[in-house]
């Protein structure tokens, strides 16, 4: 864990300590896809080093390529330029060492919870008894053992998400990729699951790359928050969260760090909105501050 909270810009990318035993590395990664309206740059020269056992949150608005980074690390997408490496080896395809958790849990509806957790083990050719032992262990870890024979639609959103985490942990991956896993949950459930994830992470010491657009969630969970900017997706800023664990949901230091990051995002969002809205946004502004209606809030 790196104790120094830094607030440098892109220069903070190669932080000492993280570099030494980097587990996942993105090296000047760019991704451009050809769409109907010409090509779109999804990621522009993104470099990240993530240490083994580190909990990193990617935070940013939609379109900043957060999920794309997960897909790259998972091996579902290949970069146009640059290198994605896992333990010094180029990532070319999905592997059981990198598991993913999705926003909608993505449990298989035709399998009971137990079958879902055993699915990746089955793909690996594990025997029935070994599978059963492993799925019991995992379902107990996420406190769902009682519900092992329930189908996904019989479970609440939070339970489904815990099931998805258990399934992702089944192959004992070194890296856990989480794509806004708690975004669709209500506030209480989300807080409970954040606590559970912290507990599981502390117990298993996986490398976690967690995508979210919730600032508090990012600061609450992460060792390091990577702030992304949009159009094209790039790293804007990185911040280490030096708050001891386990963290309380309403920890004051978490709140103040979150407030700082939120301010930074607000200015970025405003910048983007201005670019997006071009004429509509600039026109009233271009009339200048002398326009009294501007201050009264009228006519805008």
């Amino acid at each position, binding site marked *: 864990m790196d104790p120094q909270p830094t607030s440098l810009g892109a220069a903070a990318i190669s932080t000492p300590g993280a570099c030494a035993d980097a587990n996942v590395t993105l090296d000047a990664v760019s991704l451009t896809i050809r769409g109907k309206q010409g090509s779109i740059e999804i990621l522009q020269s993104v470099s990240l080093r993530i240490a083994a056992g580190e909990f990193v949150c990617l935070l940013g608005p939609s379109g900043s390529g957060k999920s794309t980074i997960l897909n790259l690390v*998972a*091996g*579902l997408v290949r970069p146009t330029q640059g290198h994605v490496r896992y333990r010094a080896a180029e990532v070319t395809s*999905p*592997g*059981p060492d*990198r*598991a*993913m958790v*999705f*926003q*909608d849990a*993505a449990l*298989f*509806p*035709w399998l009971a919870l137990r079958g879902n957790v055993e*699915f*990746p083990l089955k*793909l*690996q050719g594990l025997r029935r008894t070994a599978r059963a032992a492993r799925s019991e262990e995992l379902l107990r870890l996420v406190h769902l053992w009682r519900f092992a024979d329930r*189908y*996904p*639609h*019989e479970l609440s959103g939070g339970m489904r998400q815990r099931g*998805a985490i258990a399934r992702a942990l089944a*192959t004992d991956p070194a890296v856990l*990729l989480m794509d806004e896993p708690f975004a669709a949950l209500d506030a209480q459930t989300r807080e409970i699951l954040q606590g559970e994830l912290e507990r599981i992470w502390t117990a298993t010491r996986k490398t976690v790359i967690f995508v979210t657009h919730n600032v508090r969630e990012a600061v609450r969970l992460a060792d390091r928050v990577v702030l992304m900017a949009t159009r094209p997706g790039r790293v804007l800023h990185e911040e280490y969260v030096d708050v001891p664990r386990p963290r309380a949901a309403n920890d004051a230091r978490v709140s103040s760090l979150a407030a700082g990051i939120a301010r930074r995002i607000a200015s970025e969002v405003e910048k983007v909105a201005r670019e997006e809205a071009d004429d509509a946004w600039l026109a009233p502004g271009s009339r200048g501050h002398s326009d009294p209606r501007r201050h009264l809030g009228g006519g805008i």
Partner: protein
Amino acid sequence: MAAGVRDGTLVRAVATSAVRLVLGYGTALTLGIPLGIGLARSRVFKDTAGPVVLGLSSVPSICWLPLAILWFGLSELAIQLVVVLGAALPVAVATENAVRHVTPSIERAARTMGARGARLMFAVTMPAALPGILGGAKLGWTFALRSLMAGELLFVSGGLGQLLETGRDLGDTSLVLAVVVVIVALSRSSEIVLFSPIDRAIARRWGVEEA
């Protein structure tokens, strides 16, 4: 109607039609489902065969009868062709839709676990698309039944359709009505015996969202 049952004509007709229906429907499923999967998964196949399948599926199946007779003569094969074409195409279109609309994250999740190719298709995509495929299969059944009746009406070869035609020739309204009642019973009972249990099983597993 009772007379029809007693002298055996109605029973024989039902048996003839039922055998044709099961044969033709079975063939239609074995052709239609792979065809639909192919359309959903292969870009090239979709671009080439897609419009043809869509176009052909809009042709009322009985329109194939003249062609079938030219090819196969007044034979069992001719009537089977009508049934198969009538049922396979809607099955294919429904299967394509079902496979195409499998929740993307489900397939992505499976891929991150290392599922690929045929394994991905049979262990993940097909089960995920099953409710939709079953809907297509049900549709196919109705289409098969309709095609068969139309075919038998125009084509002398035993079966319920022909019995209807006989009733008309003899001016026997009660026979015609009896056959209609039998057709209704046949389609309803096949629905109850065949599809309702599967439907219920699916609803139980998948939950209400997709049923």
